[in-house]
């Protein structure tokens, strides 16, 4: 199989403009005859469904939630990047493109990323027009802040809940199309298979989660906007229901999974506190604008803190190691996520961790509080303000910036982060890997598109902060509505598909068999217990640091776990009812297979790049050692069944506009 990324020819900055001007269009009268299925209603799915509805297509939108507004995009905190250069600080489309390519450790396509940077500014315009209340300055214009891995302020934000506000904007646009009859919304429906007719994606099998009934839905094409697979690790910052199943079902029907081992470990999450824990909570990267990350220099201090004999406040300034500022003076606390996470892990491995588990570092706001307090006091003409007054003023500024995050931290940990530094530790947050797509966002199955976190396309081996929202909305609002025309313009004479066809009947029967198998095992262990064990294997061997030896071991363990799952899992209840345990069992079954593919991909990639760190490949300073000679490609895997080895297809990455360098943030 030859993978053609279909990147348009011509100079980088003209590719998308030229493409848009020449891509075949579907006339309005023909759009009315074409049906599109969109699965998932997060930022990518809701914005795509709304935009396609506006264009005149008949859209069916599916979500397994009770409402499209629940999608996990809602939980994104920090912000959204856009090359607006409103700050006059040297930003440009090229710079956003360059930062993203470099941040991704040169494992993304130039053409896709440049397009992303180009449309980024339109997203902000669109969101503001929808009523998204971005942060503003006193002059009434939009405010910005900085995120990791960049030296300009291009991040637009809405307090600590940018994802919520952007998703509500997209949800409202979608709701408008529902009211106009352009989009038919299927709440509480989970896609369990994709239906391929004569080599093209023409529909899905969905389970109505209230009744358990399997439904067949046909269309001219199918768009997957079903998010990432971070929950393969069990503990992650993803919502509990995030899963790989829709994407994995596409893989089982022939779609390729690209770079599955590229997962993002976010450095600033609230550390795990016990075995009962069900998920981890992120503390936004924006906090690293003002939070200084440190551990004690001395192991005995760290030990005393772990045992509760000392607190952070007992450690003198000279005895603290601000390790990010020390190791990466140019970017300091705002290094990219993969770099910050690894540095925290190294500190904890050296016995300097500060939580009882040994797995936490401090993020300290006292310097920022003093700095803001002094500025406020100066501004108010209080020249003899004492420290208490300055602290009070400074805390107010910090509260205005990050209040809801501080509140969330206090609720979960019971500690006041204004007074005591936060304890943080890396956790799984995002998956850069995903379904392989070309420039049209189309998978190798014609008519099957993948957008948002669900595809692999834009972030390479590491995603920069505030770029997930950008990509989800870029795909949904401004890219897919054009590129889908390349496929659909050849389908205007294709009649509607009858869901009674044998391909649909077969896919439904296959789905029913899977469900019956799981319900029929009637073993003794819960779905949850298997998920937990799977997550433990993945985190230990395929997490922040990986070795060939560990990965091989993990593969064996995972295979044994899957065998045990199919012998001893217990799924209570029946299919024809509301049954969350059955939903979970179907998802975990897919995670077990996809987890193995991640391990194989990590084994294959004999280099360290971005979020993928193989311990064998590092320099003396512990920095990642990339191998551009041998691994400058996208690894796209063809699944050939549990009994066979998956087949690797390579798409070489060509860099014509940026020079490949060792990524340095020093």
């Amino acid at each position, binding site marked *: 199989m030859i993978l053609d990324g279909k990147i348009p020819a011509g100079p980088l900055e003209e590719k998308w403009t030229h493409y848009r001007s020449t891509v075949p269009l579907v006339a309005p009268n023909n759009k009315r005859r074409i049906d599109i299925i969109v699965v998932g209603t997060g930022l990518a799915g809701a914005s795509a469904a*709304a*935009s396609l509805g506006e264009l005149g297509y008949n859209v069916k939108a599916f979500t397994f939630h*009770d409402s499209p*507004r*629940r*999608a*996990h995009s*809602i939980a994104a905190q920090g912000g959204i990047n856009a090359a607006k250069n409103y700050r006059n600080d040297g930003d440009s489309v090229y710079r956003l493109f360059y930062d993203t390519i470099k941040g991704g450790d040169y494992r993304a396509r130039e053409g896709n990323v440049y397009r992303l940077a180009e449309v980024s500014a339109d997203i902000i*315009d*669109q*969101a*503001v*027009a*929808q*009523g998204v*209340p*971005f*942060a*503003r300055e*006193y002059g*009434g*214009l*939009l405010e910005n802040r900085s995120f990791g891995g960049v030296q300009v302020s291009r991040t637009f934000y809405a307090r600590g*809940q940018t994802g*919520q*506000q952007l998703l*509500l904007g997209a*949800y*409202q*646009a979608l*709701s*408008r199309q529902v009211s106009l009859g352009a989009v038919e*919304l299927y*709440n509480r429906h989970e896609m369990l298979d994709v239906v391929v007719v004569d080599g093209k994606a023409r529909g899905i099998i969905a389970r109505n989660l209230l009744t358990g009934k399997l439904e067949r839905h046909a269309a001219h094409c199918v768009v997957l906007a079903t998010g990432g697979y971070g929950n393969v690790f069990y503990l992650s910052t993803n*919502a*509990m*229901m995030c899963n790989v199943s829709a994407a994995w079902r596409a893989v089982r029907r022939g779609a390729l999974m690209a770079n599955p081992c590229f997962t993002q470990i976010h450095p600033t999450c609230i550390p795990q*506190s*016990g075995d*009962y824990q*069900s*998920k981890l*909570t*992120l503390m936004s990267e924006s906090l690293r604008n003002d939070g200084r990350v440190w551990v004690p220099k001395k192991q005995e201090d760290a030990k005393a803190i772990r045992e509760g004999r000392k607190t952070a406040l007992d450690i003198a300034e000279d005895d603290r190691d601000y390790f990010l500022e020390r190791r990466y003076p140019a970017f300091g606390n705002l290094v990219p996520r993969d770099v910050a996470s690894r540095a925290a892990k190294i500190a904890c491995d050296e016995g300097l961790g500060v939580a009882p588990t040994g797995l936490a570092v401090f993020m300290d706001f006292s310097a920022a509080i003093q700095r803001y307090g002094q500025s406020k006091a100066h501004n108010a003409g209080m020249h003899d303000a004492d420290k208490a007054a300055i602290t009070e003023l400074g805390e107010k500024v910090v509260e205005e910036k990050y209040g809801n995050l501080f509140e*969330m931290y206090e*609720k*979960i940990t*019971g500690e006041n982060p204004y007074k005591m530094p936060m304890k943080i530790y890396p956790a799984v947050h995002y998956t850069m890997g995903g379904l392989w797509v070309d420039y049209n966002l189309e998978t190798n199955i014609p008519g099957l598109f993948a957008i948002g976190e669900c595809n692999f396309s834009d972030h390479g081996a590491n995603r920069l902060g505030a770029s997930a929202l950008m990509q989800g909305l870029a795909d949904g*609002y*401004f890219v897919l*509505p054009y590129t889908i025309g390349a496929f659909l313009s050849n389908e205007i004479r294709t009649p509607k598909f009858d869901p009674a066809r044998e391909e649909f009947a077969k896919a439904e029967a296959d789905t029913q068999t899977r469900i019956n198998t799981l319900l029929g095992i009637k073993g*003794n262990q*819960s779905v*949850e217990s298997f998920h937990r064990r799977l997550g433990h294997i993945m985190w230990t061997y395929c997490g922040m640091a990986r070795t060939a030896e560990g990965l091989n071991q993990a593969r064996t363990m995972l295979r044994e776990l899957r065998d045990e799952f199919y012998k001893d899992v217990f799924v*209570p*209840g029946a299919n024809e*009812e*509301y049954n*969350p*345990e059955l939903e979970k069992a179907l998802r975990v079954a897919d995670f077990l297979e996809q987890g193995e593919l991640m391990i194989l991909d990590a084994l294959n990639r004999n280099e360290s790049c971005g979020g993928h760190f193989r311990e064998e490949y590092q320099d003396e300073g512990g920095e990642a050692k990339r191998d551009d000679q041998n691994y400058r490609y996208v690894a796209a895997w063809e699944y050939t069944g549990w009994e066979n080895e998956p087949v690797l297809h390579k798409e070489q990455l060509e860099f014509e506009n940026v020079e490949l360098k060792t990524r340095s943030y020093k």
Partner: protein
Amino acid sequence: MKLTLKIWRQGGKYKGELVTYQLNDVNPHMSFLEMLDVLNEELIAKKESPVAFEHDCREGICGTCSMVINGYPHGPQAKTTTCQLHMRHFKDGDTIVIEPFRARAFPVVRDLVVDRGAFDRIIQAGGYISVNTGQAQDANSTPIEKDLSAHAFDAAECIGCGACVAACPNASAMLFVSAKVSHLALLPQGKPEAARRVQNMVKQMDAEGFGMCSNVTACEAECPKGISVTNIARLNREFISSEFGSETQV
């Protein structure tokens, strides 16, 4: 901690009743939902049907969790969703009563799960600004006063959980509806269709069977995001002023 739980079970073999469960080893650092996870694992181990409850993000933003704990939607802690409530706020030996959100417009699906589709239909009736993708002007072409934007934001923080309805003795949805009406009416972008919006949303709210507002303000007290009843006053003002004048321009 040892706890006694009295949980509303409805569906399957349960017609609708409070069922009592004992938990003997609850860690005070657990979240409330993790405590229910532990209960469900025990039930599954005994081959019994687990308690159905909805949840997703578990960080207080998706608005999925929906239960009444000891008579309070989302439990006794102010400005806290159920998923953000931790067991350290309960005492060893406590009895905790857990029920679903109750309202005619929120039919029970199973156990603690209710159907809040009415909220979606209210938004579909007009809770948006009519702008197609690509129609927008430059984002900075309309300055918006910082305070005004902040007020709109305060209203926009609603997570659509429905605690306001569950808290209200009339099961009114006024806080939810008014939050969206306020968010959009305050912003210049939302002004052109403000009158039409409030009319259509209120009409849909009534059609869904929510009760009337009688200014009890329990909604504000129970709202996990602290949405203010000032929004209800604003909705009333928007609604009354939209009654004047005619839809046809003269």
